[in-house]
Every structure is written in C-alpha cells, then in structure tokens.
C-alpha cells in the first residue's frame, strides 16, 4: 500500500480552480519529484496535503488514514513535515528557538538533541548563528533553517517546496545531499522543484504538473530523456 495517496484532488481559490483532478501516490521510502511551471499548482497540492487548504473534491490518505479533513497540526503529528515555500521561519525568534519549535511534537529529549546535532553538522552556519534572529538571516541561511526545522520532528515523510531556491550552487548540492541522506535514513520525500534537472536526478519517480493537471508521469530517469520534458523544464 502506498504511504501517501492523493485521489482526484480539486482545489479552488474562491472561483478559480487551481487543481483540477490530481491523483498520485508516494510509496514508503521513495523520493518523488513534482515538477511544473510557475503557477502550475505545486504549492497548492502540498498545502492541501498538510491541511492548510481544504480541497473541494478528492481525498488524501496517509498511511491508510484519510487525512483530508484532519486539521494541519494533527497531520504533522502523524509524521509528516513540510518545508514551506518562502521558508516561513519565525522571524523574531532565534535560530535555536526556531529549531526547537520544529521539535514541538517531539517528546523524546534525546531525539531532539540528536537531531539538533545532525542539523548543525549539515549546516554549520546555523550553529554559528544560533542566537541570531531568524529574520535577519540571509535568504540562503533562512532556507537552511527551514530545512533543519522540518527535520527536527523526525518525520516519516517530508514535503519540500523548492528547497533549493536562492541557494548558492554549493549549497544546492548540499541540500540535495541532505535529501539523499534523508532518503537513505528511510524518510519518504515529496519534492517540489524548479530545478528539474537536479530533482529528476535524485528522484525515483516524477510527476509533471501543468495548470492543475498531471500531464506526465513515470520513472525519473526516463522522464529526463523525454523530449517534451527536456524542452519545457530542462532548458535545452
């Protein structure tokens, strides 16, 4: 059985239909890439999964439980973390407080300490700046913080919304190696990316989203060879 199953999803913003019947699934331990142009509806799908938006139609099933109507904070407690678009760090809290906030649902103190250590290892910059207000971090630093914060809850699954945006080439590689690392430690990942090349490079499977509909799907490596995908998303 799939870990996450999205069925016939339809989402509206007022009168505008942003998602027009999307179905896909993510299996335990997979990295799935969701790619698509600006405004295709990627963020909307992620928000619907974590309950920040209510869909009009369709269902979302996580580990066999229907979470379509479950409020966002409960979904998080079920083991799903979300690195939101635009980082959404708590601007007036310190880096450390932000990370602690990520572990809000985590009760095990040792686990928190372990996660913290792991995050500081991957993003030494965060440890250097642990007392700085998150709002004054540079864009890239905030992105690191958002990633780190999501990892603090030891999730089973992470949804990532454009985690490489605004990062330096070196850090983009770092982010992808973290995704790799999460993948290896058994976390399931749903990755939304503009950087289709890197995303397809790391993913097992991928879905291509165009104006609210899935137009292509398949093995990531195969999609990378697809002429349409190449023309539309890889910029060749």
């Amino acid at each position, binding site marked *: 059985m799939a870990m996450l199953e999205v069925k016939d999803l339809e989402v509206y913003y007022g009168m505008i239909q942003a998602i027009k019947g999307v179905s896909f699934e993510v299996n335990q331990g997979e990295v799935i890439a969701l790619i698509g142009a600006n405004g295709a509806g990627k963020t909307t799908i992620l928000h619907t999964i974590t309950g920040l938006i209510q869909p009009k139609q369709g269902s979302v099933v996580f580990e066999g439980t229907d979470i379509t109507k479950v409020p966002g904070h409960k979904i998080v407690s079920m083991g799903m973390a979300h690195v*939101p678009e635009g980082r959404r760090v*708590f601007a007036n809290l310190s880096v450390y407080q932000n990370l602690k906030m990520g572990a809000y649902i985590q009760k095990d103190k040792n686990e928190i300490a372990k996660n913290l250590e792991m995050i500081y290892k991957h993003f030494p910059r965060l440890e250097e700046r642990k007392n700085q207000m998150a709002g*004054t971090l540079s864009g890239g630093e905030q992105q690191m913080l958002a990633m780190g914060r999501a990892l603090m809850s030891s999730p089973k699954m992470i949804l990532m919304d454009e985690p490489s945006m605004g990062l330096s080439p070196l850090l983009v590689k770092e982010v992808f190696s973290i995704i790799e690392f999460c993948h290896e430690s058994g976390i399931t990942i749903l990755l939304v990316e503009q950087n289709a090349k890197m995303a397809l490079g790391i993913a097992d499977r991928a879905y291509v989203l165009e104006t609210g509909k899935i137009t292509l799907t398949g093995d990531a490596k195969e999609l990378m060879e697809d002429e349409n995908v190449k023309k539309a998303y890889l910029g060749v």
Partner: protein
Amino acid sequence: MSLISYVINGISLGSVYAIIALGYSMVYGIAKMLNFAHGDVIMVGGFVVYTMASGLGINPILSILCSMAFCTVLGMTIERIAYRPLRNAASSLAVLITAIGVSYFLQNIALIIYGSSPKAFTSVVTIPSLKLADGALTISGETIVTIVACIIIMVVLMLFINKTKAGQAMLAVSEDKGAAALMGINVNGTIALTFAIGSALAAIAGVLLCSAYPSLSPYTGAMPGIKAFVAAVFGGIGSIPGALIGGILLGLIEILSKAYISSQLSDAIVFAVLIVVLLVKPTGILGKQIQEKV
C-alpha cells in the same frame, strides 16, 4: 512628605492599570489584536464577584475563583463566536471592529441585568493598610495585594510562555500562524488558550480594580480599559514586564501631574507624555524594535 504620599498613590493607581495591562498585552502579543472588549470583561469579572460575595454572601475567595472561571468561559466564547471567524479576513481591522461590538454588547447586557445605578463594591482585601511615618503615609491593603498579584502574575506568565510547551506554541503562533501549524501546533487551540488566560486575568483585575476603587457600573471597565491599553503601549505592547512598568508609570504620571501641574489637564498630560515616549522610543519602553530585513 506629600511628594512621597503622591508617589505611593501613583503606584497604587499604577498597579491597577498594570494588572489590567498585563492581560491586554498578553492577548495583543499573541493574538495580535487589540481586544477593546478586555475592559468590559473586567467589568463582568467585577459583577460576578459582586453578585456572589455581596449579593449571595459567598466566600470572597470562592467568588473570585468562580469569577475567573466565568470570565474564562466568556473570553473563550467571545473568541470562538466573534473573533475566530475573522482570523483570516482580508484586513486585520475587521476583528478590531467586532471587538468594539463585543464591548458594546457586554456593557449593554450588564446595563439590562444590573441597571445603571452604581454599586458599592466591598473590597475582598482583608489585609490592613500599612501606616508609615506615624500615619502620615498610608499604603492600602489593596495596593499591596495588587502589586504582589501583579508581580506574581508577571513572573508566572513569563515562565509559562518561555518554559512550557503551550507557551512556546503561543510564541510561534504570534509569529506566523501557518508556519506554526506546520510545526504541529494547534493554532486555534493556542489562541483560545490565550483568551482564556487573558480573561481569567481580567477577572482578577476586575476584582482588584473594584476593591481599590469600590464603585461598579456597566461602564466601569471602559475607561480603565483604555488607560491600560495606553499603559501597555507605554511599556511596549506585547511585552509582559513592559505592561507592569507602563502601568506603574502611567499611574505615577497621572497622579503627579494632577498634584503639581493641573488637575483638569492631567489626562492631557498623561497622553502628551505617552506621545513623547513613543517619539523617542517608537516601540515603548521595553518593546522590541523589529527590524525588517530588506
């Protein structure tokens, strides 16, 4: 000698403002809304104690506890009915206006139940007043209790916010509700809790206000509510120690300007000092300067 006694009186008055401002500031800090109905919840708190203690002869402590429970439920109900539906409204002013509506509502419902004539409130404070310098200076029992209550509440609130999970959730919610939900925080629940605590504090404030100035009418809460709002801004709205400092300062300025400048213009002077303070320190005395990164 009279200066000292003015200062004592200023602190007494200020401590009442401070205790109201604490609740105000806390609700503002977390829910990011000016709850104009706060003063009226205070009035309700006063009436509950009045009815129970003076009307039914129930033990004052028990009455206060009942009043706190009543106001807590009231605060949560108000939040649920009048404020929560507007949480995601296009403008944050919308909820300010319903708060005004709620304020009118509470005043008028009290008017209908209790009528317009003022009631004398029997102080619940039984501590005798402190006489200094051969009785030339008096610190009333109410003042002592209010200040002690203020400090205890302030410390407990700060510990609560900084040390408990629910407090941390409040911090996160005050920053970014959406992101807080993504951390697994129940945003609606957290805000409801904030109102519950704020309203319980309002009940305590109501009792102490009415004990210090024992006259109770449906409009009793309105003016102290506004003054406490000013006090909260004085100290840096959202800052809990700021509310205490702001309240005491406000009381002092009010009394001293009454005593030494003009008793008719003391309100104007209080407001003028507020403006000067804000011009020098735009976020109040203890307010955090939040700098937007470009």
